[in-house]
């Protein structure tokens, strides 16, 4: 019998899981005049999957053990068991299974963590995880048949189903997170995105998408449609507060309604080594947690605590943050909780969803793909965090280790 350790010991995965690569479509405006107004949702994710395979000819498609694709509204062109249909439409062998997954905004994140758990368990070697949301065709909550008990038993504040209202609630709860701080954060998000774009940090992850318009003919989407690089603090002061009269949340401090898809390849560390797949990040731990739905934006705090605990790390160990910007105030509430400055350079180096958009179930993998690039650029950083809030009161967090770091713990048996 050995003595119990004084601090909780980090629980190692049965097998290491690495993030091989990620890609996404350019994000489009979820409006009738948006990039993808006449493009199918499933076609978006299919093209992402095909691009991932094209970028990795060293990966024999028959070695893929699972295709998990998330969407919040699983009907129409986002229905019919996406993971399976996407695999077939992408030309994967019929032997490759797949499934659809939903945790609202954290869909793709959950696709990644769930399949990663399968890898760690030994049930899969290589997986594709991703998400798609064509909010133009599938507005959030559209056609949902909400159980009347939610209202009758006051299980949730009816207003909690309106995400903008939950953001206003966070301003109420944390009065020091002012509209001005939120506005400044939003302006900075746009500026960081513009800089990242200029520096070539955005384009490499994008998959060009052929788009059809019955009015204009075929075109090609190669860039995000939503960013407003011209945004200044002054230019957004006059904006309306659509969620509450005299409120603080404006379109400028909210992520816009977005169409887009993301996908990633994850693999067991050993298998990545065997196949010659790059290991751009090692998954250290993840956690999901619930919060009251009316302050759903606060969700990443408890989920991050959970992931940190599992990893045996503290927030100070995290050198890079990729936080989904559903609303500026919601990110601020997270930073505020951990004592991180609003403009901390470790946070959202390429800007965030306020600039590029938030196609609900897709966003989680975008965070990962961007963190992987930042790891390459910052070998001095050992750990990074991807985190996001989830409608109806949840948070999701994944902690990653940087293989470029000098003290990298490794992901193969030999190294261990």
């Amino acid at each position, binding site marked *: 019998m050995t003595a119990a350790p004084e601090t909780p010991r980090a629980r190692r995965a049965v097998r290491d899981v690495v993030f091989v690569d990620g890609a996404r479509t350019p994000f489009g405006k979820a409006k009738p005049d948006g990039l993808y107004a006449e493009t199918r949702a499933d076609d978006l994710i299919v093209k992402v999957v095909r691009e991932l395979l094209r970028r990795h000819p060293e990966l024999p498609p028959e070695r893929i053990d699972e295709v998990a694709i998330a969407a919040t509204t699983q009907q129409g062109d986002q229905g019919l068991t996406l993971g399976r249909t996407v695999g077939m439409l992408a030309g994967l062998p019929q032997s490759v299974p797949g499934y659809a997954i939903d945790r609202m905004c954290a869909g793709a994140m959950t696709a990644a963590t769930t399949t990663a758990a399968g890898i760690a368990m030994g049930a899969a070697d290589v997986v594709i995880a991703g998400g798609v949301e064509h909010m133009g065709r599938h507005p959030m909550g559209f056609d949902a048949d909400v159980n009347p008990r939610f209202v009758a038993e006051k299980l949730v504040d009816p207003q909690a189903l309106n995400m903008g209202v939950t953001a206003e609630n966070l301003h109420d709860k944390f009065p020091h997170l002012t509209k001005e701080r939120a506005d400044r954060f939003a302006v900075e998000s746009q500026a960081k995105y513009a800089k990242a774009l200029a520096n070539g940090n955005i384009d490499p992850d994008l998959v060009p998408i052929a788009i*059809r318009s019955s009015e204009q003919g075929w075109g090609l989407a190669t860039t995000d449609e939503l960013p407003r690089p011209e945004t200044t603090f002054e230019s957004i002061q006059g904006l309306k507060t659509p969620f509450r009269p005299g409120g603080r949340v404006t379109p400028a401090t909210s992520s816009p309604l977005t169409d887009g898809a993301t996908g990633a390849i994850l693999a067991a560390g050993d298998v990545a080594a065997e196949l010659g797949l790059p290991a751009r990040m090692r998954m250290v731990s993840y956690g999901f947690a619930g919060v009251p739905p009316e302050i759903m934006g606060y969700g990443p705090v408890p989920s991050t605590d959970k992931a940190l605990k599992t990893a045996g790390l503290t927030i100070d160990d995290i050198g890079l943050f990729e936080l989904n910007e559903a609303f500026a105030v919601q990110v601020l509430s997270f930073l505020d909780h951990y004592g991180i400055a609003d403009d901390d350079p470790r946070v959202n180096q390429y800007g965030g969803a306020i600039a590029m958009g938030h196609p609900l179930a897709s966003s989680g993998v975008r965070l990962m793909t961007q963190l992987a690039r930042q790891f390459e650029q910052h070998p001095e950083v050992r750990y990074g965090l991807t985190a996001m809030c989830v409608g109806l009161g949840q948070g999701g967090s994944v902690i990653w280790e940087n293989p470029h770091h000098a003290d990298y713990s490794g992901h193969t048996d030999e190294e261990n």
Partner: protein
Amino acid sequence: MPDTPTPSAPTERVTHSLVRDVRMPGDAGILALVTLDNGLDHTKPNTLGPAGMAELKAALEVVRSRAEAGEIAAVGVTGKPYFVAAGADLKHITSVHGHDDAVELGRAGHAAYTILGDLRAATGVPTFAFVNGLALGGGLEVALNCDYRTVASDAAALGLPETGIGLVPGWGGAYLVPRLVGVEKAVEVILTRPAANKPYKPAEALKIGLVDELFEAADFLEQSIIWAAKVVTGEIEVPRRELDPQPVWDGVVAATKAQLDTLVGASRPAPHRALELIAAARNATKADAFAAEDQALADLIMSDEMRASIYAFNLVGGGKKPQGAPDPKLAHPVTRVGVVGAGLMAAQMAFLFAQRLGVPVVMRDLDQERVDKGLDFVRETAEKLAGRGRLAPDAAARIVASVSGTTEIGEFASCDFVIEAVTEVMGLKKKVFAELEGIISPEAILATNTSALSVSEMAADLAHPERVVGIHFFNPVAQMPLVEVINAEHTSDEALATAFAVTKKLRKTAIMSADRPGFIVNRLLLLVMGQVVDAIEGGTPVEVADRALAPLGLPMPIFELTDLVGPAVAQHVLTSLRENLGDRIPASRGLAKIVEDGTRVVLDAPAKGLPKPVDPAIQEYFGPARPGEPGVLDADGVLDSVLTALTTEIGLMLDEGVVPGPQQIDLAMILGAGWGFHTGGITPYLDRTGYSEKVLGRRFLPDGVANVPA
């Protein structure tokens, strides 16, 4: 002043040219992407009429000026989903009134397409076609005029079918194809494939060089644009073949000419004109070659052969909806099929029923040996098709498993559809039906595959004659696209509807015929045979008679046809027709003796693809030839007698109400006898050669329907 359209001008379904700038990856610059789109769904393919062509030209002129101004780095052309274009607007082509207008039609296409062909030389900006779907005729030529081409793996078909409908590829195809893929393949593209009605699949098009790259459909346009960007930046170079040496060119042209002279002869001009253009393509300037295309196209547009071809083309397209068929809802469900007999015809039908209806099929014959032979045929056919990859192994296994054989007629008890294919003897067939009636349910449909006997008589003594319908298949059953559905005296709408429903599932074109001797195809085909043999009996040499119908351009000489059908069958049907229709159907003692002796009537073909000539030795069956003697027909005389007899007979058939109109006769002869589009089936030919007026005092079809109107 507002435009007043000419009253006869058909309304054009305009294919628009939508232009959109695309930023090419890899900093390759702007691609001006032209999408051809008629704004309609996938059931209405893009076609190219004058307004659409003018729009394309206007769009490309803007593109050209932008190229000159250095604003764009490449031009792309693609189509709406699943289609580049199905070709020129045929409605417009057949409404062209004068030669000048016809020349203008060709020039208008060249004026638009040449912008794509000349842009790189003038401005350095290359042009690309992204063939994302069906590209036929003018739809492929727009791509051929571009500098580079990609094709999607799911593009339904690529080809230049023009010579098959009496035209030439006159928007650059005749000049560009031989230079692009070589003269030998060009002959295949422009002549052989259209004759076989077999356009190219994307992989085939890639293989012969009609296109430069093939990309999978899932992200075809994305990959095509990325590829185009690499071509623009020089990362990818596309090799082009040298022109074939003059002797090779001349040799291929000469060999093709010899073959055309034999197979096509003077029956229609289009293939010859196309070959002339190919011959000149090697050394002509592009301008001269395109001018020659304009002239050839115009001459052909103003030809009766071309107008008849379009009439025929439309008939075949419209044939999917049978004339006079009752409400399909009246059809009985067919869940188990019985085939009486297990001979070759029966086994072929059993296979097809099992394959296409997906129901159990039981074949019955008198002894086990014959039953086994029929089952062997089904199994061997399934294995053969599976072995060639034409049938999935599971589907082959399903067909074999679903066809059973028996000697017990009682096995038909649970069949709701029974078709007989026993020997063509009325007494036998009546006995079979009578026996069946005691076994099957009163609602079950009884069908007969008779080719010459009266279906009404066959049914006459039954308790339920209304359930009897004729379904006449042609041999070989799998390949022949036609069936004649025979509406006998007592046939009910339910039985007819069931016959049409079944034949539709069998993927056949069904034509309804009244229960008259020989129905449609055999009545006319055997009449022609009988007429030719009668001339021989009258002293015309067999070799003269054999080739006498060459001006019609039939698929084969008359004795090769006799050989294919079998002289015994021909003699049998001929005799039966004569018994029912009278002396105008000739009798031939010579043919009877040939059948008796089992003599083969033809020699082997001198080369593959050439016709089998009559064996001169069979002359002795008819007595000595007496060419030149009074009353002995020469080739023209034989042709005249055949055309006269055909006109008379068709006139009678229409009077008898065998079919509602000449269109059904034409469709039947095209699909059942393989008669050429250029004859329009047959009645347009009889109209344009004056036979209908001369013999009947009236035309079959109104002037202009299948000819150039006066």
